[in-house]
């Protein structure tokens, strides 16, 4: 048997990790889109 504090930590720690990872990947995705938007448009050589 474990105490309620340990049980609470077992819920909070992975939840905080999941939330942090969500924001980290969101930030990375936004940065990737911003960089892609700044790239010069490809030249269309088709006739």
């Amino acid at each position, binding site marked *: *048997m*474990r105490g309620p504090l340990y*049980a609470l930590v*077992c*819920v909070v720690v*992975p*939840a905080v*990790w*999941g939330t942090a990872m969500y924001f980290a*990947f969101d930030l990375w995705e936004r940065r990737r889109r911003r960089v892609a938007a700044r790239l010069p448009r490809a030249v269309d050589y088709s006739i």
Partner: protein
Amino acid sequence: MTLAVDGHAVWLPGLIALGVVVGYVAGMFGVGGGFLLTPLLTVVFRVPIEVAVGTGLCQMVGTSGGALLRHQRLAQGEIRFDLLIVAGSLLGVELGARALGALAAAPPMVVLGHELSAARLVVELLYIVLLLGAALMFGRDRSAAPDPFAPPPGPLARLRVPPLVDFPAVPLSAVSATVVAYVGLGLGVMSGLLGLGGGIALMPILVYGFGFPIRQAAGTGVAALFLTSATGTFVHALRGHVDLGVAMVLLVGATVSAQLGAEASHHLRTQTLRRLFAALILVTVLAVAWDLARQVS
């Protein structure tokens, strides 16, 4: 490089690899991965079944928490449905955890002259039955599947047991709150007893049982998954069935590889994904069946 889990030494690189594989599968197929994690922790790493169930649920709190935020941002899901599901699943998780605790404390069962842990025997047999059913359902050709954007109300949505509630986000009207709560109860028992988050069972129930459009089902399912796995983790941790270190090792690998899995799923056809998923479930069934056969031979 080992980690002590309930007196058993678990090989750390193998554990990291398991987290990566489960995360990739979860990201690719949009499920929690509990159906893969709990049996493999027991069969491959020899973690006691009750600890595998509790630790698997703990890892799922992290993966489903991130997925829940993503679905909330996309405004997918019906929160009232989730609340009704959770009303049942809170009770179900406690019942499932108590049943698993009782099985773990029970004397070993004798099968074909060999002593087997009652908890491991019951959980592995239930896994084989449930996963075989899921593999058959996912592997079936769905050419006559309901319209993914506006399906008709399913058989569970037509049951008229009062009180009746409307779910405008889906949209579904006059759905029995009692039926939804009982679905939650079943989901909770499955979660507490087997460590399944519900992706295997809840998604088909929402889509084919109630008639949810796929996107709304995914958003609704992930909220119920998060709340159920959080409750399951809490009740299992109180019984000493959660190893936070193992859960975090699994979670770190899983959160990164889930992004890669989700990316890979965009390059595959829906039918191919379904067949791959069914094949993966069958491999898990074979692993569990092999483990049972090994114990009685």
